[in-house]
């Protein structure tokens, strides 16, 4: 027989380490500890999964193609500016198709002049075959498209992270998944809808001039119910002057709370975008109505001053994600780099608007392709029921083992407790996330942990039946069961590892507890219970075994 004391110490060490590791998972105990202990211990233990504490899990997809279109649109804008600067009388510049822009002009002699401008747009190349003597087609280079798509997701990731930081969520997860997906996890959040809106909003802020000369402007209805937006757009689709569009302002009647839309005729050309903001804050106006005060950076401030100086007495629309917030008349040149966004919104809406403006716009719209929201009450129910069922199951097994195997059963029960302690300690040390299937995994390991002991005990009984003395029977039982236990555990471990590698979310949680549980099982069954049997045997010569 091997020496016992070494293994007893090992067992005690493992138990102590497990308990110490588990402490950070139980905040009341952690807080009660003296300062030096807190300094030594990690301050994070087992975290509860979204299904247990409530929260949202979103998978978002960046609309990459739209990001490319937006980039081409931007180039169209700057080419228009350049043509005006160089006094080249081109007729129109338009985005045609997702990655092309077409420049049209009346005089064929302009063609060479316009071609030269391509030097200023290195990310485009001219499409040779298309176009005519009075038009040129430019195409965005493949490498550039790839770069735009790639940076779109990184930028979206960064923007979402910023917004969530400002919104204030404990331990959020914002990660890239695969090529174009972003996973956002917000545990314990109370207002899921608000958080989702905050994440999804593109928050593209634009300043555009109203078109006040067009005939169409006079024909527009003064206001429409919100469902009829698209009707109005359709009705005026072919009457709109070149380069104009219809955008709507959202108006809520203060007395009745009814929502209306006020249509405006707006020039498509973007004067300034939200890129040039350095800050956005909520302020309260003189009638107690909240508004957002924005501050431009140096370049934006100069630009804004120039635009306002050139457009005095004209109306400028403040547009966010294609909705007009306000359309004030420019009274005078505005220097100092500040402006206001007013509109009918609550303090909370103004707050969220300030957050998205500060965090910046998303490079392209996002689609939510997976949305799991768990309310806090379900999580509480689940924990309560899960824990209750686990305890009950544990007690049943403990009683069964004692009834069936008597003293040996009690030793197996000790192994069971040891198992649980080690498992919780290990989960805590790994700062694992405990999900509901994870709890099921723990319960399952309890069942399988018992299996190892049953195997050993049945073997010992057989040895005893064959007339062996107690000590050789125990040793024989352990020896013969050893290979079987290893084989059976390894096969289950293979399943667990496959689940861990390919499972997602809650299934991963299940796989983690299962794999850890199996490893710990092996230890407790082969070392834990054997030590106790050996201890009994060492003290005195045992004639009969209670099994």
């Amino acid at each position, binding site marked *: 027989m091997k020496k016992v004391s070494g293994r007893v110490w090992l067992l005690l060490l493992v138990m102590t380490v497990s308990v110490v590791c588990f402490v950070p998972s139980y905040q009341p105990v952690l807080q009660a500890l003296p300062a030096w202990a807190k300094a030594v211990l990690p301050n994070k233990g087992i975290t509860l999964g979204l299904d247990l504490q409530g929260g949202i899990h979103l998978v978002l997809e960046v609309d990459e193609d739209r990001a490319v279109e937006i980039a081409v649109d931007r180039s169209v804008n700057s080419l228009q500016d350049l043509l005006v600067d160089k006094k080249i009388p081109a007729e129109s510049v338009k985005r045609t198709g997702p990655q092309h822009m077409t420049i049209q002009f009346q005089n064929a002699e302009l063609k060479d002049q316009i071609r030269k401008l391509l030097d200023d747009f290195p990310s485009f190349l001219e499409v040779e075959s298309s176009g005519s003597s009075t038009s040129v087609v430019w195409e965005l280079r493949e490498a550039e498209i790839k770069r735009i798509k790639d940076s779109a997701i990184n930028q979206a990731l960064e923007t979402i992270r910023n917004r969530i930081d400002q919104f204030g969520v404990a331990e959020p997860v914002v990660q890239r998944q695969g090529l174009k997906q972003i996973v956002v996890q917000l545990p314990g959040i109370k207002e899921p*809808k608000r958080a989702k809106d905050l994440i999804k909003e593109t928050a593209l802020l634009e300043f555009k001039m109203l078109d006040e000369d067009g005939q169409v402007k006079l024909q527009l209805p003064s206001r429409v119910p919100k469902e009829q937006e698209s009707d109005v757009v359709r009705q005026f689709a072919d009457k709109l002057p070149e380069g104009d569009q219809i955008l709507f302002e959202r108006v809520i009647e203060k007395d009745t709370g009814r929502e209306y839309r006020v249509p405006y005729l707006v020039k498509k050309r973007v004067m300034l975008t939200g890129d040039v903001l350095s800050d956005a804050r909520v302020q309260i106006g003189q009638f107690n109505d909240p508004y957002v005060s924005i501050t431009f950076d140096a370049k934006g401030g100069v630009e804004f001053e120039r635009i306002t100086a050139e457009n005095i007495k004209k109306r400028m629309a403040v547009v966010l994600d294609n909705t007009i917030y306000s359309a004030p008349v420019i009274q005078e040149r505005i220097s100092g780099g500040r402006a206001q966004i007013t509109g009918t919104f609550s303090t909370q809406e103004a707050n969220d608007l300030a957050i998205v403006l500060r965090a910046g716009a998303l490079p392209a719209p996002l*689609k*939510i*392709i*997976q*949305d*799991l*929201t768990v*309310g806090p*009450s*379900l999580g509480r*129910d*689940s924990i309560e*029921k*899960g824990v*209750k*069922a*686990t305890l009950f*199951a*544990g007690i*049943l*097994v403990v009683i*069964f*083992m004692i*009834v*069936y195997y*008597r003293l040996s059963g009690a030793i197996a029960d000790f192994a069971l407790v040891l198992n649980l302690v080690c498992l919780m300690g290990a989960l805590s040390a790994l700062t694992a996330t405990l999900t*509901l*299937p994870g*709890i*099921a995994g723990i319960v*399952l390991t*309890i*069942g*399988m942990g*018992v*299996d190892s002991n*049953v195997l050993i005990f*049945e073997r010992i*009984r*057989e040895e005893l*039946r064959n007339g062996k003395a107690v000590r050789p029977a125990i040793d024989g039982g352990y020896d*013969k069961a050893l290979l*079987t236990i290893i*084989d*059976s*555990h390894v*096969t*289950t471990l*293979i*399943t667990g*590892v*496959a*689940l861990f590698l*390919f*499972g*997602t979310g*809650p*299934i991963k949680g*299940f796989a983690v507890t299962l794999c850890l549980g199996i490893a710990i099982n092996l230890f407790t069954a082969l070392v834990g219970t054997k030590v106790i049997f050996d201890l009994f045997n060492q003290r005195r010569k045992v004639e009969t075994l209670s099994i």
Partner: protein
Amino acid sequence: MLEILGKTNIDFMGKRKIAFAFSGVMVMLGLVAVVQIARGAANLGIDFAGGTAVQLKFDQAVRIDEARKALESNGVGDAELQEFGQDNKLLVRVKASTTIEEKTAERVLGIFAKEFPNNKFVVDSSTEIGPTIGKKLQEDALIAVVISFAGIILYIAARFELRFGVAAALATFHDVLAVIGAFYVLDKEITLLIVTALLTLAGYSLTDTVVVFDRIRENLRMRRRESEETTVNNAVNQVLSRTIVTSLTVVLVLIPLTLAGGEVLHDFSLALLWGVIFGTYSSVFVASPLLLLWPGGQGRLLKRS
């Protein structure tokens, strides 16, 4: 010494024809279910099929037919409803391969707020899954299944012999198919969680089979003049009480989990429970007799050692 079974000498191998007939039926049922799942005709959970699930907890009980009427009259006709009685909980599922942009969840909430103004509710959970995600999850689940099976067959083939690996894999397939078949017949929803349960029960059933095989291997090495059939039969009888005690403890664990573990764990535990029962049966009645069917397998293990 308290024993459920004493020393037994049951002729399990002699009953293999009956067992194979029964198992054949279960496997056929399972295969039908798998084909139906692949065709999308089975009750696939929204995590695979895509769609929306909203679980609400009301102040007062809501009758399921009233809820259905409310939804239908507001244009959500294709919803499936399920209630969890004692907690006034209602689960609304809308399976559709639409995008989330339609905001089905918000629509459902709006309808209940409008139609049941005096019965307040809180949202327990809301799940919306786009069809692309469902595809990905299906693929991932399939990969997990294939990899774990390949790994297990390889491991057993290495530790024992090829015929043991194949018999164990077939018996495990049998258990998984039987549970899938049972779920299909009862029109239970196949969710990602159920797939997890299936993989777990595959692992469990294998464990069980390995224990029996281990004893068969041991006895084959020591045998003198008995036929292979007798050797296998003796081995099964020798480990029978262990097989039953083990299954009993796992069943003892799973029953409270099924009955009181809450709605999320119910189907999961139920799948495991059936799995344990089938797994125990198959180790004795399927895996072991399959060893005897292997052509020319007589005594090879004996020579090898």
